[in-house]
């Protein structure tokens, strides 16, 4: 399986190198044939269903093992919700729903949601890339049971379109929309944890890119007669980026290796805290060392920093997970800290 995954990673890098460039990122609409071509190549290689069960036509590679793929996709700044599709399809498949072809986006954020006669009404909030797909996974709790709700013909009134940050996000009001499938989600799957892990892996991919951009820019840009990278003040700032990034990557590889179980749910919380914190540092420092050029739309840095700003707030920010960790330790046991940690 590891060999299989390595081949997939290599193929993915090639596809993304071929298609993704900064002008593509500035025209994320379904009419853009370049976007369509990219998606077709992605789909042809089976990436959307990489963690889907074989019986539904997937590769059935465990979700946690494919986190390196999520990293690569976002390291390239791919302007498509492949990460969202992979996670949605995984949840669908685990809930015994055959995932549809094409892009699948997700949301857990809803307002006044009502389900009657296999139809759904209410507001769906902060849905990524709704402009590119009709397929939507809603994760929603009904009578204390978490349900996976698949919509395959999403349709409604757009009440807010957010595009301050890099990815398109929509709030949409739907009325009596047909539900394609609805099934309970296994107890072992917690979408909030998986979402936090997904966003962390995406952030780490993006942060690696930002570090590379910063190193390259500072090595080329000359001021006061020498490259910026020769100034100790700059070197130390970039080192700080690398230090925070390495801590996040270490936290990510724990999850990649162990997966997510009862015993190590703390590791997922730690990952989101580290990645979110690192993102804050890295956004600030990378823009600082880039100067004004980094603040332009043309230069690609901002695509990555904008996404970081968006992802670090999804599925619980640092404070949310710090509270989670602290509460869990303080309330649920009487061990002293060291015993608890080890």
């Amino acid at each position, binding site marked *: 399986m590891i060999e299989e995954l390595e081949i997939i990673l290599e193929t993915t890098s090639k596809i993304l190198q071929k298609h993704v460039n900064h002008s593509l990122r500035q025209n994320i609409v379904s009419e853009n044939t370049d976007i369509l071509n990219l998606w077709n190549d992605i789909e042809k290689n089976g990436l959307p269903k990489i963690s889907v069960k074989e019986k539904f036509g997937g590769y059935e590679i465990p979700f946690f093992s494919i986190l390196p793929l999520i990293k690569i996709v976002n390291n390239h700044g791919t302007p498509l919700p492949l990460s969202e599709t992979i996670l949605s399809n995984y949840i669908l498949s685990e809930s015994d729903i055959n995932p549809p072809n094409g892009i699948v986006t997700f949301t857990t954020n809803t307002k006044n949601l009502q389900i009657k006669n296999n139809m759904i009404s209410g507001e769906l909030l902060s849905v990524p890339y709704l402009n590119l797909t009709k397929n939507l996974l809603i994760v929603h709790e009904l009578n204390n049971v978490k349900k996976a709700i698949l919509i395959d013909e999403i349709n409604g009134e757009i009440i807010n379109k957010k595009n301050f940050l890099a990815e398109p996000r929509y709030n949409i009001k739907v009325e009596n929309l047909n539900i394609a499938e609805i099934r309970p989600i296994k107890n072992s799957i917690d979408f909030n944890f998986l979402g936090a892990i997904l966003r962390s892996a995406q952030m780490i991919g993006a942060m*690696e890119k930002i*570090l*590379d951009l910063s*190193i390259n820019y*500072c*090595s080329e840009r000359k001021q006061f007669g020498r490259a910026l*990278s*020769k100034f*100790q003040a*700059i*070197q*130390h700032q*970039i*080192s*700080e980026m*690398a*230090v925070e*990034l*390495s*801590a996040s*990557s*270490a*936290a990510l*590889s*724990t999850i*990649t*290796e*162990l997966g997510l179980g009862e015993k190590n749910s*703390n*590791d997922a*919380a*730690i990952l989101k*805290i*580290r990645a979110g914190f690192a993102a804050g540092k890295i956004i600030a420092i990378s823009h600082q060392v880039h100067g004004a050029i980094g603040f332009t739309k043309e230069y690609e840095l901002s695509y990555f920093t904008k996404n970081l700003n968006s992802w670090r707030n999804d599925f619980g920010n*640092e*404070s949310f*997970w*710090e*509270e*989670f*960790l*602290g*509460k869990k*330790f*303080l*309330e649920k046991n009487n061990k*002293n*800290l*060291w015993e608890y*940690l*080890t």
Partner: protein
Amino acid sequence: MSKFNFPFVKETNELSNLRKEVREFITTCINNDEFTPSPDAWVFSADPSFSKKLGSKGWLGMSFPKEYGGHQRTALERYVVTEELLSSGAPVAAHWIADRQSGSQILRYGNEKQKSSIIPRITAGKCFFAIGMSEPDSGSDLASVKTKATKTKNGWKLEGRKIWSTGAHLAHYMIVLARTSSASEKNRHEGLSQFLVDLSLPNVKITGIPDMTGQRHFNETLFDNVELSDDSLLGEEGKGWKQVVGELALERSGPERFLSHFTLLDSFINEFRNSLIHSGTKIVGKLISEIQTLRRMSFSVASMLQNDESPETQAAFVKELGNKFEKMMIETLREFSNIVPLHEWPNQLQNLFEDATLRIPSNSLRGGTTEIMKGIIARQLGLR
């Protein structure tokens, strides 16, 4: 960035059992009043009899080969033992440097006589070391050392002074970095060599320097034309820089870079558990996330050492993050005093806190400053 990976390493059941064994031993020691947990114990709290006891338990020189009295266990096993000792504030300062770096350095570069005469005593907890790197005019700029070793008929003559030599007044040996020939214009790292110096030799003069806490661990060590035997040279003449860089990886990557004040945190949480449940879950969560990440990274470096890799850069990452965490931890506890004012804390906790506040500036100086760590990282990133 791929070269700065910290691969995940699992703590096996065997390691967890070892952890338990060490913990039980420490609890017994504390219950028998053999030591009082203290902060920064690996620098400040030396107890040769405790070191000997650890030696007889087989917990010193753990990874050293059996033929030299070692136990041929892994760097990961040693890691687990050191974590337990540090987190309980045990008096480990006497043997710390010998066990952490000097022993490995001798095993790696030493000749047969050096190995067979010294290593068994280190593993027994009877032979202690001091570090001979810094000098009055060479702090961060280590390559500028002026201590000189000159070849004589029977060996070497050592002249110069080393400073900030922690524990030299208790140590039997010091590994001294000295110039054996002048640096070439292109490469100032050339012409340096390491020497294994017996501190009981004539003309070695050790003077204590009280630090700002008033305690003595610092020393100045003067070598006033000390006659060294021929086999005092450690490793190869002129290769001292390369050797010392490897030694620093051992020095920087361990859990002492983030567990020096763990006893304070532990007592703090035990004391204020109930208030923390109401108004401090977030800060406790933050601290847990920091410690666990650091443990995870430091353990990974231990595994790199076990595999004979050279994790000098990764060690710098651990030290830098660890130092930052410890400073942040003390600030976090200080902020909590708006909920329970400091003067209402139990005396012992107040003392621990003030002590930590006093000592904390040194954590990002010893073993290489923050600036040096960032410089090392910047070099690896291709910036210098």
